[in-house]
């Protein structure tokens, strides 16, 4: 029985974190209103719904706000429980999914930023090497968790797919703008195949930003900001 209450997602199209609840809602076939926020001019609703961080994404269910992308994904999984499960059912598999999702946020995204921020070849090479070390761990994790299927979640997209897959466009843009190759067939064949499967999944493809559009935004807005922040340290 579907729980009552309208669903809104406050977000912005380039944000990988915003993709996460949208994919989860799509997987569960839940209708929602997407409210595009302008980070330079935050709405009253956003400030009221997330007073602690004032950040997107925010899910508003009825009139109750839920904040922090992975907290929102778990909430969606637990509320709309008659649909496909996002977290696995076995507690050990759940712990593994949570572990690797945390790893991606703690290590992979910051390392990507280091690649972007590096202003000389040595620093860039070091950051790329670190990133690739992380990828080889994730390749192993994918093999273990997928048990021969396409996704970390097995036959269907799961928690770890959502947590990691949301960064795909940003990784692509980093490769182009920083002129590096991060993913390759020989080192991480399963991840390369997974990128394609994830990106073309019906719950994902309409909310994944187009590489060209994202690249403009990255080059003009985000990457200069990342470099400025690194230079200020």
């Amino acid at each position, binding site marked *: 029985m579907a729980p009552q209450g309208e669903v809104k997602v406050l977000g912005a199209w380039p944000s990988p974190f915003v993709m996460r609840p949208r994919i989860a809602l799509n997987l569960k076939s839940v209708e929602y209103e997407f409210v595009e926020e302008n980070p330079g001019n935050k709405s009253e609703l956003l400030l009221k719904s997330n007073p602690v961080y004032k950040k997107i994404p925010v899910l508003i269910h009825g009139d109750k706000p839920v904040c922090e992308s992975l907290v929102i994904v778990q909430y969606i999984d637990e509320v709309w429980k008659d649909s496909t499960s996002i977290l696995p059912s076995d507690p*050990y598999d759940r712990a593994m999914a949570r572990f690797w999702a945390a790893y991606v946020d703690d290590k992979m995204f910051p390392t990507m930023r280091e690649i972007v921020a590096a202003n000389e070849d040595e620093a860039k090479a070091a950051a790329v090497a670190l990133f690739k070390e992380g990828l080889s761990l994730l390749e192993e994790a994918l093999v273990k968790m997928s048990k021969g299927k396409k996704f970390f979640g097995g036959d269907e997209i799961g928690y770890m797919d959502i947590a990691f897959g949301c960064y795909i466009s940003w990784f692509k843009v980093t490769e182009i703008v920083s002129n590096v190759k991060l993913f390759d067939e020989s080192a991480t064949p399963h991840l390369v195949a997974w990128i394609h499967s994830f990106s073309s999944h019906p719950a994902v493809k309409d909310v994944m930003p187009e590489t060209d559009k994202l690249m403009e935004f990255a080059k003009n807005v985000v990457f200069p900001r990342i470099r400025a922040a690194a230079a200020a340290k």
Partner: protein
Amino acid sequence: MAKGDVKLLGTWASPFALRVEVALKLKSVDYEYLEENLRGGKSELLLKSNPVHKKVPVLLHGDRPVCESLIIVQYIDEVWTYGPSILPSDPYDRAIARFWAAFVEDKVYPSMRAIMTASHEEARAEAVAKFKEVLVLLEDAFVKSSKGKPFFGGDEVGYVDIAFGAFAGWFKVIEKAFNVELFDEATTPNLLAWVDAFLAHPAVKDITPSTDKLLEFAKNFLLPTMKAVAPASQ
């Protein structure tokens, strides 16, 4: 899956290992505690069980390792389903609990580090003031989620109590070592009472190290180590 052998790799002073112990005690789970020797270098078992981060705590259930303290606490809650629930049952309450646990993870340890490694009085006072802003937010969260009861979890210790309360011993150390008040009647009256309620809880009181022992440890080992790796921006 048989609830077999349970081992916890930890270090006695670690608030992160304490989180796991409190969860195990709450559920009355029998476990073997294996102390990692901080000065002796990491054990083979630790390196094998947590190859990615090489850190404590690690829970070994049967021979399967679970890493990252809050992930372990959730695992414990989901495996040992008898005994008090650590996470609430309602999905919205669970989301709120997870939010505040993530907030604690984000803010508390870095704030404590800033206070402990501050190079002069002014910097320390600033670090304490910043931390108190964090505590005011947690005070508000406490009032909302406790609904008049002694813990974030209500009548019983819950997820946020464990996540945040694990630092309670260290809060006492900071207050004693630097002669500062972190919690006070004026700005955080509920948290002031909560710290002592948490430390007195049966699942906590026998495993929390004494303030004096932690203070010794801080002076002789932790602070010199922290200062050696403290980033220049502090």
